[in-house]
């Protein structure tokens, strides 16, 4: 852990911090995704008919809102090296609960509160099995993916509940004042700030990274591994339920099969945003750019009347490339600059420290 810097060295030689600040901020995976997203947006504005239209931003943000929401806790979950595949099923379940409870005569706020509690319970089940029983999250959440979806479809069957009050559905589809920004962005921004603080500016967040790098080591440095994971799955459950409520009100229908397959879109966006599937690495701004990137690509291709299959192929390729490229480039990079690094700029111990850091 400790750097090998001698007391006389003026600059830090700890590899990760030896570059100038601007380099450390700009030459990152997150920057790459943000630049790419900006490039695709600019390209679409210039070349895709109607992409610059007044409705695009509203529909785009409305479409990606559930994914933006769930990507927040999902990022933290994946940084700990775990995964939550049950998020879309929790969305479906909260959607159905909202519908069923509203149909039974409850007001929307009461029904929504109960749906959120159900999401919390779903997250608690996942968290308990993973954090305290110690089962692998992949297996547990594949199981609960089927379980929660089964309950959702079982509650409603193949019917749909569609009679939601207009003032609530217009909250979900409305925009802030005269602007083109949907109202749902307000809770999202609040949550996003909360998650950024939690992950990047709190000891809890440092613990999250440490667990992803090495949970044994994290345990011995005083991180409560089980409690951290439990909290993350609870958050994942309750935010997914929130996304489910938004989804229901936006599309005006509560169905058991609502949001099927959303977990893949969320995970794709998180990985595209530079979070390592092995844990320990990733930042929220990259993930949010990843979500926007996928949303812009789908929106632009839909405007071009490209079929959904082609969109899936492109997003899939982008995802595979984003997982493979760092390894390939890392390998290629390790060959190329070897000669360059023979220059005396980098003292030898530096490299050992760098490796230890990995």
């Amino acid at each position, binding site marked *: 852990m400790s750097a090998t810097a001698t007391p006389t060295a003026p600059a830090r030689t700890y590899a990760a911090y030896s570059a100038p600040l601007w380099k450390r901020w700009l*030459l*990152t*995976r997150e*920057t*790459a995704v943000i*630049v*790419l997203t900006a*490039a695709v947006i600019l*390209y*679409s504005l210039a*070349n*895709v*008919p*109607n992409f610059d*239209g007044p*409705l*695009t931003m509203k*529909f785009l943000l409305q*479409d990606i809102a559930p994914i933006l929401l769930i990507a927040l806790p999902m990022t933290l979950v994946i940084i700990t090296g775990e995964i939550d595949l049950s998020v879309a099923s929790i969305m479906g379940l909260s959607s159905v609960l909202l519908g069923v409870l509203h149909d039974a005569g409850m007001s929307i706020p009461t029904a929504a509160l109960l749906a959120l509690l159900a999401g919390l319970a779903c997250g608690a089940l996942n968290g308990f099995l993973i954090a305290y029983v110690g089962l692998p999250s992949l297996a547990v959440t594949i199981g609960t993916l089927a379980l929660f979806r089964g309950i959702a479809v079982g509650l409603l069957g193949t019917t*749909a509940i*569609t009679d939601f009050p207009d003032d609530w*559905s217009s909250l979900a*589809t409305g925009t802030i004042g005269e602007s083109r920004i949907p109202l749902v962005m307000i809770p999202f921004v609040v949550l996003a700030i909360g998650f950024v603080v939690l992950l990047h500016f709190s000891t809890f967040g440092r613990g999250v990274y440490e667990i992803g790098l090495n949970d044994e080591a994290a345990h011995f440095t005083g991180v409560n591994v089980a409690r951290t994971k439990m909290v993350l799955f609870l958050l994942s459950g309750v935010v997914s339920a929130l996304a489910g409520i938004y*989804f229901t009100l936006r*599309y*005006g*229908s509560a*169905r058991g*099969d*609502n949001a*099927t397959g959303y977990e893949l879109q969320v995970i794709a966006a998180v990985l595209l945003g530079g979070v390592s599937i092995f844990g320990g690495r990733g930042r929220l701004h990259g993930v949010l750019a990843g979500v926007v990137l996928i949303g812009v*690509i789908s929106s*632009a*291709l839909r*405007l*071009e*009347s*490209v*079929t*959904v299959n082609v969109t899936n192929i492109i997003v899939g390729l*982008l995802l595979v*490339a*984003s997982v493979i*490229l*760092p390894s390939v*480039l*890392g390998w*290629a*990079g*390790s060959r*190329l*600059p*070897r000669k360059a*690094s023979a220059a005396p700029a*980098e003292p030898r111990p530096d*490299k050992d420290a*760098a*490796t230890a*850091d*990995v």
Partner: protein
Amino acid sequence: MKFQKRRPTALAALLLTATFAFAGCGGDDSGDGGGSSAGGDGGGGDMSVTMLPKNLGNAYFDTSTDGAEKAADELGAEFEEVGPDTASPDAQVQYINTVAQQGKDALIISANDPDALCDAIDEARSADVKVVTFDADTNPDCRDLFINQATSEGIAAKQLELIADQIGGKGEIAILSASANATNQNSWIEMMEKELADNPDYADIELVDTVYGDDDDQKSFDQTEALLQNHPNLKGIISPTTVGIAAAARYLSDSSSKGKVALTGLGTPNQMREYVDNGTVTAFALWNPGDLGYLATYAAAALVNGDISGEEGDSFDAGDLGSFEVGADGVVLLGEPFTFDKDNIADFDF
């Protein structure tokens, strides 16, 4: 393996940026190639129509799209079909939104949900898109027109007409329905019973039994067998459900009653082709989805051109199909059900 870490990371980041940028351009380039013509047409002042079926890859909707495309060709309109992979309302909403963004002139849609799509359709209509539903309607107040494939009266009358024709106007008949509480089937059966009792043409026809196959292939098959055993003098079976008629035809084609007991009802050409070819079934009914798409496109064009406003009593011309009038609630009726028989079944693939 120990290697210097920082530089490769920086290099990787740069290359990644470049590669992604190229990948992004590549994806968009291919999209642009396909879309530039659409953009050109849209700007040319021609009519642009988007067809949004319940889902893609469905032979029924492929047929209706073919019909719609034919009409669009005749009208000189730009035509395109989009749709989700699975028939869910939320997936359709995105396509409706896209049509609103593109500022298309008309949207022809088969709705996956009568209520859930209304918000999105309202938004499209406020962007001056004319919305015509076909096959499956939304609430009447959120679309301009609904092209109805057939009325219950028409379906009931057509099936009786077919069976009367096939059994020579007299004898015992039975009905093999879907489930005992199927709304559509029950209303047709009720109308058929009334017609049998009231219409002097059918005075010699006696409805001896109504059985339910629950739209389950095996159960429908078994019920057909039971019908034939319980009613040795049975001359004909009406099955107003596609599952029932196919199962009954399968039973009859292997039984000694083949050719002696007539079978008709509502079926699809692909399911029934074998039994029409081997003589088990003479004729059956359904609507023609091709005509449905064709009529929907002409109706959309009439709305866009301002020939009609969708009010009751408006009438418009629909090419080969002739002239149509808008009924109550903005419903346009395609006509009486279409009869499929040996001579025309080869023309259909759905």
